[in-house]
């Protein structure tokens, strides 16, 4: 059975909140790691870092519509045993794995572009870089959890998301990454 359907059987506001928190915590952990990586890449000239990010976006954009690149990923599913726990704990643990962004299947090129952005064109000051990384992490968690949390919160039926919506979200993310890189290039 689809994991989202397993959570849907126990739909409640508590499950929705725990799913959201799990996804955000997972994303914060990944973003914190990328923040450390960005610190190591600080010696790279700003123009080179921004141009590299723009190049990555350009290479990834066609992959939104069809998988032209074999992007590295773990191709793993969260095991069913996670759902043996209480529904709230199960939702949190399940979403944490999803929120990490690299532990399960990565079906969109957008996360690769976002990871490149965080590693290469994060602001220079530690405080500013941390705020930027946390902004990306929290919104990634919200986006990753939006479908399951909204279903759990409103008790609505679980449905597959249409391909056009997922592609549009990928494109928006890539455009936003390009905007951050252009901003870094012109700074």
């Amino acid at each position, binding site marked *: 059975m689809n994991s989202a359907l397993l959570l849907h059987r126990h739909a409640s506001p508590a499950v929705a909140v725990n799913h959201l928190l799990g996804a955000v915590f997972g994303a914060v952990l990944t973003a914190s790691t990328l923040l450390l990586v960005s610190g190591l890449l600080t010696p790279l000239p700003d123009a080179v870092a921004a141009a590299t990010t723009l190049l990555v976006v350009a290479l990834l954009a066609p992959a939104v519509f069809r998988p032209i690149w074999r992007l590295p990923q773990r191709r793993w599913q*969260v095991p069913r045993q996670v759902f043996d726990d209480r529904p709230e704990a199960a939702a949190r643990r399940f979403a944490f794995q999803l929120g990490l962004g690299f532990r399960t299947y990565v079906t969109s090129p957008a996360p690769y572009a976002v990871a490149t952005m965080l590693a290469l064109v994060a602001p220079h000051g530690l405080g500013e870089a941390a705020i930027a990384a946390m902004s990306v992490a929290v*919104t990634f968690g919200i*986006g990753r959890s939006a479908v399951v949390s909204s279903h759990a919160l*409103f008790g609505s039926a679980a449905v597959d998301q249409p391909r056009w919506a*997922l592609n549009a979200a990928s494109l928006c993310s890539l455009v936003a990454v390009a905007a*951050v890189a252009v901003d870094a290039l012109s700074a």
Partner: protein
Amino acid sequence: MRTPLAAAADTRALARSRAVAPAFVACLVAATAVSFVSAPVALCVAGAGAGYSLSGSV
């Protein structure tokens, strides 16, 4: 056997579910338009778009 009332509730639940994608994408597109003038908005769109784009998988 399902009652007409239960069937109507299911239809409403399905409609609510199907409204999530257009609503989320509409917000993202609107925010993307602002991305080139506001770096914080761009960061948020990048994160939210990437997160939602993975919603086709588990």
